[in-house]
């Protein structure tokens, strides 16, 4: 058995490191093209998707090179706007300027101003920056004899088209959803808000993956404190990579032990715009269609864009229905267990007779029966979610109908329990936010245990504990339960019921927007 040699962790002195092995961070662009290419080739060793294309500019036969990543660059732009114009149309932009030979930075700016017919061009002398640009899909352009390089924007890669959002379907409303490409997403937002006040601040997160993140907000509406806090938290993230906006959510949320989500995610641009107009902030991550909205308060998760697209009576009804459903989804099994095991006196006689009749022959106490059925329901749900779509459909039928019916026939569960479980499940699906619905479904189990141990007293204790938790929770300095706690009468117009649009004159107070007026008070119109 040979022990591996101990690896020395002592850092070598900077002078001892060979030039090409030095980290790119400290290197500037050299005036020699060859030198630059050598360093970058060493840096991009074994990356076969990085292309080095050396060529000569125009008639002056000045050596130059472009470096880009194959697949991230739009070939048309690269060929026509960069190579073609530099190689064939060089005489047009008169490199020699007629009299004296143009050299150095002057030459480069001449190229930039007269030679390149690309939209996005910027100068850089940091090799690290250039490497990043190359990896992001830009083209780096080096000219011999000039200690400066150009970054030419020619990004273009295959991406999913804008399609209907899969997770949030509406009856009425736009059918566009975000895609995995950041630029398309920001464009979708910009399309819906033609105002320079819609700011998009960029930053990169992920020490190794360097994912682009855009912070979108509306200047003049956003609460500066919340904005600063959000930025501060984003900057504290030091992780090798963020693969989905869920990473960001979990790294910057306030209470990671809570079952309740403190950020909203959505695939719908219209939802994001609505949030921005309320003075909230959107965090858009490259590589995922799910945009985060902060700060998210509890009542927000019950809102669906449709509440606002449909007339207010319909919106109010559906929203109130969802709030009732959330209580059902959380407490119904627990209350059933408590009532049957401890307080049959609370149930009307005829109903109790029906329950007793249906429980006749079931060998388990209600808690065992309930946990069993709830768990099997969660199994069906999970199985349906994991399976490919065409097969997933059958799980619902097999699980719900056949197993449920068989369980009743086999006396493993009472029909009433099946009803309770089904109603609970359906109620939890009415909540528009999947993450909150999951939270409710998780709370259900401890509540059921509490009901089995202490009866309704236990359910009440659970309810109180949940309430205490929610009241004390803050998200980005905003109370989670606002406008319920702290109480804001003005915002109740759009809480349980959705008031008529002409009555919603102000933005929610909770985010503390700078400008709280939404629409002018309507003068009497002629109709």
């Amino acid at each position, binding site marked *: 058995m040979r022990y591996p040699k101990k690896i020395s962790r002592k850092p070598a002195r900077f002078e001892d490191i060979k030039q090409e092995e030095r980290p790119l961070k400290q290197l500037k662009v050299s005036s020699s093209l060859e030198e630059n290419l050598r360093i970058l080739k060493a840096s991009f060793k074994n990356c076969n998707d990085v292309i080095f294309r050396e060529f000569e500019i125009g008639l002056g036969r000045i050596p130059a090179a472009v470096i880009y990543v194959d697949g991230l660059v739009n070939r048309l732009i690269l060929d026509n706007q960069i190579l073609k114009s530099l190689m064939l149309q060089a005489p047009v932009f008169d490199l020699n300027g007629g009299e004296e030979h143009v050299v150095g930075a002057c030459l480069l700016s001449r190229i930039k101003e007269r030679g390149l017919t690309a939209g996005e061009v910027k100068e850089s002398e940091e090799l690290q920056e250039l490497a990043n640009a190359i990896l992001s899909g830009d083209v780096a352009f080096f000219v011999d004899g000039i200690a400066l390089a150009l970054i030419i924007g020619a990004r273009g890669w295959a991406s999913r088209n804008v399609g209907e959002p899969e997770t949030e379907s509406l009856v009425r409303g736009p059918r566009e959803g975000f895609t995995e490409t950041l630029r398309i997403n920001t464009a979708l937002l910009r399309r819906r808000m033609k105002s320079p006040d819609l700011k998009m601040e960029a930053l990169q997160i992920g020490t190794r993956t360097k994912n682009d993140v855009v912070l979108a907000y509306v200047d003049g509406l956003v609460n500066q404190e919340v904005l600063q806090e959000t930025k501060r938290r984003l900057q504290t993230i030091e992780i090798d990579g963020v693969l989905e906006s869920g990473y960001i959510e979990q790294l910057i949320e306030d209470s990671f032990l809570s079952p309740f989500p403190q950020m909203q995610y959505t695939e719908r641009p219209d939802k994001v715009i609505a949030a921005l107009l309320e003075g909230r902030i959107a965090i858009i991550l490259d590589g995922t269609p799910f945009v985060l909205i902060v700060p998210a308060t509890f009542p927000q998760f019950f809102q669906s864009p449709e509440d606002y697209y449909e007339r207010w009576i319909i919106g109010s009804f559906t929203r109130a229905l969802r709030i009732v459903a959330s209580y059902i989804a959380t407490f119904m099994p627990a209350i059933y267990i408590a009532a049957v095991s401890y307080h049959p006196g609370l149930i009307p006689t005829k109903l109790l007779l029906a329950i007793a009749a249906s429980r006749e022959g079931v060998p388990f106490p209600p808690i065992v029966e309930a946990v069993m059925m709830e768990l099997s329901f969660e199994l069906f749900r999970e199985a349906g979610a994991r399976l490919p779509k065409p097969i997933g459909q059958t799980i619902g039928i097999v699980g719900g109908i056949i197993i449920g019916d068989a369980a009743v026939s086999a006396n493993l569960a009472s029909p009433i329990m099946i009803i309770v479980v089904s109603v609970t499940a359906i109620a939890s699906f009415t909540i528009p936010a999947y993450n909150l619905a999951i939270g409710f479904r998780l709370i259900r189990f401890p509540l059921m245990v509490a009901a*089995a141990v202490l009866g309704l007293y236990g359910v009440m204790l659970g309810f109180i504990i949940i309430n205490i938790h929610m009241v004390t929770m803050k998200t980005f300095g905003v109370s989670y339960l606002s406008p319920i706690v702290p109480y804001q009468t003005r915002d109740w117009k759009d809480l349980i019921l959705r008031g008529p649009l002409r009555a919603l004159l102000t933005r929610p107070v909770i985010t503390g927007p700078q400008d709280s007026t939404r629409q002018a008070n309507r003068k009497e119109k002629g109709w």
Partner: protein
Amino acid sequence: MSRPAKVTARWLLMICMTALALLMTTGCWDRWELEERGMVLGIGLDEAEKAPPIPGVEGELDARGEPVLNVTFQMVDPGQVAGEKKGGGEKGSPYWNLTVESAGSVFEAIREASTRANRSPYLEHVQVLVIGEDLARQGLNKVLDALFRENEIRKRVLVYVTPATAQEVLAVKPRQEGVNAVYLASLQENSKKTSHFPPRVDLGKLSRNIHEGGSYLLPRIIPAKEEVKLIGAGVFKEDKLIGWLGGFESQGVRLVTGQVKGGSVEAVSTRSVPGKKSLDVYEFMELQSTVKPQVQGGQIAFTVQIQTEGRLVEHQNPADTLDEQHLKDMEKEFARAIEKQARLTIEKMQRDFQADVFNFGRALEERYPQVWEQVKNNWSEVFAAAQVEVKAQVNIRRVGISR
């Protein structure tokens, strides 16, 4: 902003441990699963000799003395309540009656039932309490005391009294309703249609009545083979049954006390051809009554004012019901019929029972407290001697289709 993860984890661990410890220490002390509770829907109380226990278990009382009281529990058999019995077979009765002998204590009997029923009696859903005549004549207080105190019984239990035995009443297999006790209890809800039995008396009200020591009525229930009849009332003084009222007088009591929700009164039609009697029937829609006591020189008198609105539901002669004069005549006719019914009832109560079930004493106390103080100790005699005048005013609101 956020505590270090170590501290949070420690907190979490502590909370989990505490919760675990708490869970371990609870005994689920009130837990009593539904399938272990013998749901009792009806209780019957009888004198022991009148109602031998069915099914009997010999020597039940051992050395606890002579049986004086039989308590019948009507227990539900949940397996038979549902529409179909699982696994086929004959559908049995959804309930069964268990009669327990007792040496006088109802509470003992309740506990004694657990020696024979594997699901011990659970009393929160009791619907009716039926009391047999013999027991009622001996006095209710000492028998019902246990039920008044029992925390498991609701105060909304309906109380009936029967001239037969409670056991017989509870043994009736109703044709209409699965469970006998549910059937018995739902009869009381028909007050909207008929006034031939007194307003509902539940355990709470009975307790108040007994402890106030006045007179009151309990609905009378008469068993047959497949049905019962709820008609008339038992008249109680203090806690003893002293006699019976029929349906007619029960309505009379309701008229005087103004507790009519429905029911009708009939009168011989004003347009009847002599020798050919035809009837007019009037149904109450609303009725109010006020009792005015008058004291003049030691003489106590009462005036009962009855005001009612209702509709003409039957008019057997061909006269025009829309005739103004005819309507007025009919109203007078009905008023006379109402007055007569009330007067007869009052006279019967004064003459036969000397029991003030109309709460005249209450009216007197409100109006002339000093007089009440003087007469309250022999109120029965004073009531029996009091002059009572009844005046009724009828307003016919509808006559139905006239042609």
